[in-house]
């Protein structure tokens, strides 16, 4: 439950009085927590894109990435509503469009996968390396 991966953790730990603060902030998650969650999701998605062989799974990892971005948008939208910005709902609007794009991209991408599968009989990405030297 603690954010181990804060690079400034070392520096923060040097200031011992921060522990209580950290507990406090853990009990009352606010914007930063949302952002952190989004960041983690994003990175997991990136790892999946880079690592998996199955092209469908790569696509799903891409969906994860887009979701993480959506989460960021929504979190900021909420935050801005509370801090009184006039255009706070822009985040949610943007999310709608992200979802639209994600859907379109998924459709096209999966069409490509199907065509690729019909021609190459494979879904393993590392077997589709024709554009090499």
């Amino acid at each position, binding site marked *: 439950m603690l954010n181990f991966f804060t690079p400034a953790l070392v520096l923060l730990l040097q200031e011992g009085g921060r522990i209580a603060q950290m507990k406090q902030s853990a009990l009352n998650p606010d914007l930063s927590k949302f952002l*952190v969650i989004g960041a983690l999701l994003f990175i997991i998605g990136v790892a999946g894109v*880079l690592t998996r062989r199955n092209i469908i799974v790569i696509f799903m990892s891409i*969906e994860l990435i887009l979701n993480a971005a959506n989460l960021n948008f929504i979190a900021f939208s909420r935050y801005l509503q509370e801090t009184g910005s006039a255009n706070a709902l822009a985040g949610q609007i943007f999310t709608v469009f992200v979802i639209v794009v994600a859907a379109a991209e998924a459709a096209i991408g999966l069409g490509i996968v199907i065509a690729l599968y019909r021609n190459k009989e494979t879904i393993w990405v590392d077997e589709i390396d024709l554009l090499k030297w």
Partner: protein
Amino acid sequence: MTLSGYEALFFWIFALAAIFAGLLTVMARNAVHSALFLISSLVSVAALFVLARAEFIAGVQILVYVGGVMVLFLFVIMLVNVGAEERGHEEIFNNQRQVAASLIFCLLLVGGVLYAVNKGYAGLQRLHPTTADTAAQQQSARESSYATSATAASKITKDAEGVGNSLYRYASLPFEIASVLLLVAIIGSVMLARTLRQEASADDLGPEVLKVEIVNDPELANLEPQSE
């Protein structure tokens, strides 16, 4: 927007669920498992949306993303034969070097992003300082003006109303463009996923290509439309 109480609890539950599901999406052997884990991740994120007072978007996420996109994914998974993978004979991860490099990069990214978020939020705090109590007070003050739902158990938020206002007033052009985009996507996907026979019968194959393909698939000749 400090969450407190049950909201905090649910936040942590759904947050960890989303992360965990995402992790498993990436690490599952079976593609269908992967898809299912992704669905759960998406649903968790939708819950997080609700916690962030974006109920409309949560609904859209469930309906469109989960109900449309993920179903499409599942269809495609089924179309594509993943038998070998299921039986565990195939390697699901790339070669070692790629994986190692990816992990290193991702770890570095984690460090960087987290540091950035902390730093940024510290700045935001300085900009708009707010404590938990003041935040809760503001929230309740806001919600007091909401209408009550039919069952009188909760208030009806203004989120959908707000999204609709913004979307059709200020974002109407992007909205229309998005619809065109969807149209293009539809056409594209239909065209991309055509089979050879479908193309031949629609007279979309060039004669040289047809000649080559007829060697492989003699029935293509029957499908040839009469030239006028």
